[in-house]
């Protein structure tokens, strides 16, 4: 089985979010980058599939050379090869198009992407990629079992879950639940050493077009200070009369 895990290179969850002087781009100064958490759950699930039933795992990112340390980290965790599509990630559609070229060239059986990246929160790349490639698609996937080309999957829905049956080739939008937080792996020294010599291919794509363009960013206005109250009665009074939410 050939598995492709799509890796977003995102600011660490504790990052302060700032923009450049004219508010047109994210300010990367001093920001630590990590593997997008939703992607990391998927990468770990891919490693389990490899260990249990045999698979090769490639990881891919669409972005500039600055994303390579994140791909190396995925290699150190256990992926076999990495691919960087040398293209700025302008919008979800263009990223999905770029990835579709990689998927079609590599003939992957299973593509695992996170349900959304924690930076731009588009949540559209996995579905768009599946549709462009003609693969089956399961979003917010919290359970995945594969036997031959048959797949059973669990999808988280609002207020519950849904059990699904499908077949490879398949794209999933993964998240916590595919594996648990405690299952995530920290690269060890051996993994880090091996990752240095594992292949990292840089590819170019053609005929990519964006469907949208972000013009500017704004940060929320500073919040008013909290109103402290002494007891339940005062709280209910304020929620009813002032905030009007009960």
């Amino acid at each position, binding site marked *: 089985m050939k598995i492709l895990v799509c890796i977003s290179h995102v*600011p660490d*969850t*504790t990052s302060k*979010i700032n923009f450049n002087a004219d508010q047109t781009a994210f300010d990367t100064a001093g920001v630590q980058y990590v593997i997008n*958490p939703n992607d990391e759950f998927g990468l770990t699930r891919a490693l389990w599939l490899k260990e249990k039933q045999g698979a090769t795992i490639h990881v891919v990112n669409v972005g500039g050379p600055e994303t390579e340390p994140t791909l190396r980290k995925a290699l150190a965790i256990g992926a076999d090869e990495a691919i960087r599509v040398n293209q700025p990630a302008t*919008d*979800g559609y263009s990223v*999905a198009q770029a990835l579709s070229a990689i998927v079609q060239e590599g003939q992957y059986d299973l593509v695992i992407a996170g349900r959304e990246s924690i*930076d731009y*929160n588009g*949540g*559209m790349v996995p*579905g*768009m990629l599946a*549709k*462009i490639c003609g693969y089956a*698609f399961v*979003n*917010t996937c919290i359970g995945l079992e594969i036997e031959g080309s048959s797949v*059973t999957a669990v999808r*988280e*829905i*609002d*207020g*519950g*879950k*849904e*059990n*699904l*049956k499908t*077949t490879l080739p398949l794209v999933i939008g993964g*998240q*916590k*639940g595919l594996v648990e937080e405690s299952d995530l792996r920290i690269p060890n020294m051996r993994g880090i050493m091996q990752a240095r010599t594992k292949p990292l291919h840089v590819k170019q794509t053609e005929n990519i077009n*964006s*469907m*949208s*363009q*972000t*013009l*500017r*960013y*704004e*940060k*929320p206005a500073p*919040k008013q200070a*909290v*109103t*402290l*109250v*002494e*007891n*339940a009665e005062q*709280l*209910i009074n*304020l*929620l009813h009369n002032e*905030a009007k*939410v*009960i």
Partner: protein
Amino acid sequence: MPILVYAESDQGIFKKSTQELISFARAMADQMNTEVIAAVTQDPSSADLGQYGAHKVLNLENTLLSTFNAELVADALSQVARATGATTVIVSSSANSRYMAPLLAVSLEAGYVPNVIGLPETYTPITVAHNVFTNKATAFTTLQSGISILGLSKNAYGVHQYETNAEITPHEVTLTSSSVEITSLDKASNKVMIADAEVVVSAGRGLKGPENWGMIEELAEVMGAATACSKPVSDLGWRPHSEHVGQTGKPVASNLYIAIGISGAIQHLAGINSSKVKVVINTDPDAPFFKAADYGIVGDAFEIVPDLIQKLREFKAQNA
């Protein structure tokens, strides 16, 4: 060019988010001098969508649409968009719409912007404000495609009343089977869902153990609220993952969010930031949540929550 709304329903009931989508589409339609077409997949005769602003209701009569399947809904809506000439499609931020919309976007070669928080600031081309960085910032994005799909954030616009007489017409779509088959559904029918809830009662490690959640559930019941929890609580297995709210969990955009024994890590605050009114109850006055909250009580949850339950019962009895 009309505006198409995917009017989701749950067991025959049109959700509040659907009413909100229709009102939002109507305000756009009035600006664009066009009409709102609501596409429904369940018999809409019980609900008058005209009162929220719809001009027309298309009933997509196809037995394959009786349960939600993202591929089939996307296929159906793309046929409706083509047939009606719609150049704007409005969807919600439900799990189902988020699953379906990217498939529809590829079918229609449409641009798709989710997490939209208000009416467009320009209409030709469409430029909208939407939340990014898990609500830590807003982006203003222009769509460059012939067809635009907007995913409206819950509670971002509100429901508005109209007196439009929306005519309901059957609309045929041709569907083949899907590559994904739903074998079973596991859904609590008596619980308020976080996604739909007006009020969310959430608790963290301050509650000391899963055995202490009785009062949280009781408070939620009194308030008609959904229950939620912080990440550590779900990681410890005290509560199911489906209750985890925050950056890597579920987003919350309720009217009222009550955080009990949650310190307020940046990832948690990001996930609940879209809620209108935030209340914190915590013993530690330096807990970061107090900086994000509108109202706070510094104190012991084990004393305050039972008192709150009792006072709310009295309040409800008086205001019933």
